[in-house]
């Protein structure tokens, strides 16, 4: 392929309906605008649900990777530009076909003429340009209008002409926020960021919830969750709110209560209750977890049932039927894996009983909770003492002054 000079981006005209469409197109535009901020030479123009990114020498591959982080985007095409001049279009068309890899044996030219002032209609143009390509190819190329190996598409706009072949699909899904808001339980492990990514791709706006047991868990474990959230923030036009819940008190009190093999079950129930309260304050309509069926003791079917019992919000588990290897592969693809495997203890690995219950009994659990008269008050306190952080893709670092 020739070095692309521009990228033609098509927003979500197919997936979005109704009066919200403009709003979510705006959000996607913002995200694309944020993306190209890091590439100062690139410029952006919007036209009827399309965005033209002019690279001016900025790296195509990096920008394309950035476009793959815009959910709901329907497709994009690497392109080169020509002047509004038949000779220039022919010259660039010939270069384009020559540069195509592998060298095509058959081709076709299709022309769209949005600029009706251009002297030749699209049919004539296809003919004029295709003819020039054929003459240059000296018999190595043939026209095939039905199944060409290379389709050269020519888009004649008001001020310039774009030439391209590929129409690459975006990552799919819906623009972030177009399907409401949910809270994502973020432990710092491999699974929860992947669950977050799946939620965002389905158009959910997410806010993170992390439970920490400082000083039993370190500040580094919290930093890890912040770094993971920052990776997810690359998929939004702005920031992700991350709620840091102090859980030390609850965790130590539960740990002292001789509930050994039910500790995890009790902790999880408490976490979900706290998250549900936070959700109501944040107008979120679901909780998202990274649970995967059978992965650990707390993720057996019975455990899930007992842990989720009493929570009125839907608990979404995007990874519930996935294999660990699949999840790891996705974590690597979204660049969270290397952060997730950093060895800092988090709430869920602290005070782990030797043999956690895989088959907890709801009645027993409820009876125990009733005897923990301290629990409702501590949970209320945890909600009140929760700290909200605003995490953006770019670190607004207190140390920036040094660099």
């Amino acid at each position, binding site marked *: 392929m020739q070095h692309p000079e521009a990228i033609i981006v098509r927003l979500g005209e197919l997936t979005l309906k109704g009066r919200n469409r403009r709003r979510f197109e705006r959000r996607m535009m913002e995200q694309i605008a944020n993306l190209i901020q890091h590439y100062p030479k690139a410029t952006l123009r919007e036209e009827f649900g399309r965005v033209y990114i002019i690279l001016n020498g900025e790296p195509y591959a990096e920008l394309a990777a950035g476009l793959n982080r815009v959910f709901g985007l329907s497709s994009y095409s690497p392109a080169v530009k020509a002047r509004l001049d038949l000779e220039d279009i022919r010259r660039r068309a010939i270069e384009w076909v020559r540069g195509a890899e592998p060298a095509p044996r058959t081709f076709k030219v299709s022309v769209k003429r949005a600029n009706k002032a251009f002297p030749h209609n699209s049919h004539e143009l296809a003919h004029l340009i295709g003819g020039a390509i054929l003459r240059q190819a000296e018999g190595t190329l043939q026209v095939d209008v039905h199944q060409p190996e290379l389709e050269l598409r020519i888009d004649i706009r008001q001020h310039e002409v774009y030439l391209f072949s590929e129409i690459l699909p975006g990552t799919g899904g819906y623009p972030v926020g177009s399907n409401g808001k949910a809270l994502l339980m973020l432990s710092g492990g491999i699974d929860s960021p992947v669950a977050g990514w799946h939620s965002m791709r389905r158009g959910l706006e997410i806010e993170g919830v992390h439970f920490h047991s400082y000083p039993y868990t370190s*500040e*580094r474990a919290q*930093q890890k969750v912040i770094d993971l959230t920052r990776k997810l923030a690359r998929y939004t036009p702005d920031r992700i709110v991350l709620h840091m819940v102090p859980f030390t008190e609850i965790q130590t009190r539960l740990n002292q209560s001789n509930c050994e093999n039910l500790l995890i079950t009790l902790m999880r129930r408490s976490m979900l209750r706290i998250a549900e309260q936070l959700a109501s304050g944040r107008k979120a309509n679901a909780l998202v977890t990274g649970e995967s069926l059978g992965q650990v003791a707390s993720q057996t079917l019975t455990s899930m049932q007992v842990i989720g019992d009493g929570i009125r919000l839907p608990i979404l588990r995007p990874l519930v039927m996935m294999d660990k290897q699949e999840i790891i592969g996705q974590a690597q693809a979204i660049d969270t894996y290397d952060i997730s495997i950093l060895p800092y203890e988090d709430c869920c690995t602290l005070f782990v009983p030797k043999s956690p219950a895989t088959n907890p009994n709801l009645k027993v659990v409820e009876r125990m909770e009733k005897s923990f008269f301290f629990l409702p008050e501590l949970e209320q306190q945890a909600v009140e003492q929760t700290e909200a952080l605003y995490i953006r893709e770019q670190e607004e*670092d207190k*140390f920036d*002054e040094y*660099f």
Partner: protein
Amino acid sequence: MLYLDYCATSPVRPEVIQTVTDVMTRHYGNPSSLHRLGKEAEELVTKARTVVARTLGCKPSEVLFTGSGSEANNLAIKGAALAYRKRGNHLITSVLEHASVYEAYRQLEDLGFDVTYLPVDSTGQVRLADVEAALREDTILVSLMYVNNEMGRVQPVEAIAELLKKRPKTLFHIDAIQAFGKLDCKRVVRNADLLTLSAHKFGGPKGVGALYCREEVALLPLVSGGGQERGLRSGTENVPLLVGMAKACRLAEEEREQVAAKLLTLRKRLTDQLALIPGVHLTTPAEMTAEDEGYAPQLVHLTAPGFRPEVVIHALEKRGIFISTRSACSSDQVEPSRVLLAMGFPRERAAAGLRISYSADQSLEDMDRMAQELGAVLSMLEQA
């Protein structure tokens, strides 16, 4: 005073001094400590690594900090040769290299490695055909400098990288110490396995260097211990200096194009003036470019046969001008330059080399003064 020995070392930029001072004062924690002070220090190291990685266009995990450019060269060469010893026993470098590369290869020869020292042509450039001819089935490492520190010749590292692409078992190490901030290192790093930087050559502090080490490349650590720098270079991180290096890297890369253009105009002026002095032979041609196949813009090398270079240097020093004979690391030796001999210079000329290296902050008038004073010194010495 007119300092014209920037290839030996550069003065530390004031903003870098400020950073080093502030970090040294405020953030004395050990990055490995678990408390807040340690965590802050660790954050600073992480950030410094990210900043350097950005200037090279690589991943932060691919940047290792060391205590000097020489150490980075040693780690790259001995570390790779020893880690891949089972793969092969043959190494390639050139006669041009800085002592920290050259001597590292000598040491490996003592350990039983087979080393080829590539010759250079009369302009001081390694020939691609020689590299090709030297490559063997068991070649595991090739080291070459991007810019020679003595006479500024740019080496064809991109063409060699292209050649080595077809040989995944041969690693390519580029010593970019003199190139960073003047030539585009981002472009060459993409095709290198290892690449060396030294902070004090571009306005950073002494005592800190960096090695780019591609993710898949293994090295045998030369310093074992607490496992810092991915376990490849143990020792408590020198937080203030590596933050200072990161800042100097960022500034140097941001200013690179402008700086290179300015250096070229200074060089043009200087060579034009020097060419008029009787007895001066420019090692580098008068018409030069900073293109890949040319000469680096930041220095001019000349020989003045019949004059002892250290006498010339001291005479200039009396007039407030500071230049060098050759690499500062070997300038106390009286022998002729290994590099100039390799270029085919007769002994008399090879022992009479002078290097003038300047910064973009200097002026055309500074270059005029340099040439005038050299002319005066040489005619004075001739009469004596």
